[in-house]
């Protein structure tokens, strides 16, 4: 009895939902191209000092990266056949550190034995310095 109301409502619902999804993805595109951000560390947590402002730390991190990570993630961390691009990481510094320490099961080796906390910090500084 109410099926025509329900059908009309469904039609409109689908239109509004598509428009919303389109609007969201459109805004994503707009944000990507027009909005600049103050800091690259969006999680808002800070590390001892601002690590990305230390060229020494970054250079050290780059060296470690070339030795241990570039074979998978590419020379400039732009991504390889199997491993992702590491520019503009959206995960927190703490999570990057955890990924480096513990690795990712079946995907990425762990580096907890190879690098100490400060060396891992330098790797994070290098990754955060990438633009």
């Amino acid at each position, binding site marked *: *009895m*109410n*099926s025509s*109301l*329900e059908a*009309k*409502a*469904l039609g*409109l*619902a*689908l239109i*509004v*939902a*598509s428009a*919303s*999804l389109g609007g*969201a*993805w459109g*805004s*994503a*595109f*707009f*944000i*990507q*191209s*027009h*909005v*600049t*951000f*103050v*800091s690259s*560390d*969006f*999680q*808002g947590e800070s590390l001892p000092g601002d690590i990305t402002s230390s060229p020494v730390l970054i250079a050290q991190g780059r060296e470690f990266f070339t030795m241990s990570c570039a074979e998978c993630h590419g020379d400039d961390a732009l991504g390889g056949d199997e491993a*992702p691009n590491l520019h*503009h990481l*959206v*995960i*927190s*510094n*703490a*999570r990057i550190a*955890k990924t480096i320490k513990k690795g990712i099961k079946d995907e990425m080796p762990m580096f907890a034995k190879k690098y100490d906390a400060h060396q891992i910090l330098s790797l994070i500084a290098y990754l955060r310095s990438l633009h």
Partner: protein
Amino acid sequence: MSIDPALWSKLHGASTHFPVALTMAAALFDSLGFILPERSGHKAKLHAAGYYAIILGALGTFPAVLSGLFLTKGVVLGHDALLYHHLFVWPAFAVLVALGVWRALVGEKFSERGFRLYLVGLLLTAGLMAAAGYWGGELILNS
């Protein structure tokens, strides 16, 4: 435009829980309202609660989605936890908006078959929202 990213992190955290909770509440109220017998005397009240919960939930997704997009600088998919988050977020967002619009228009004038379909969609969406929330939590909490 220049924006402090920590602000978006806070806004996303503050805004995401409303649509998740409201969708679950809507699923609970409307399912109970559907299942309970007429003589219980609660049917109409439960359906009314389900009606307002889904409409507010659907409206609440917009600030949640927008703040999330600003937070990630406009990433639609990403990878790892963020990718999983998005694989649940986008279908949940679209279906939730559709459910909210449908329910707002149909109100209490639904057929039994129509409402059964609506409930299936609603329960599915509540599941998607929970999964999206889980992976969103992984992005910050598990760090």
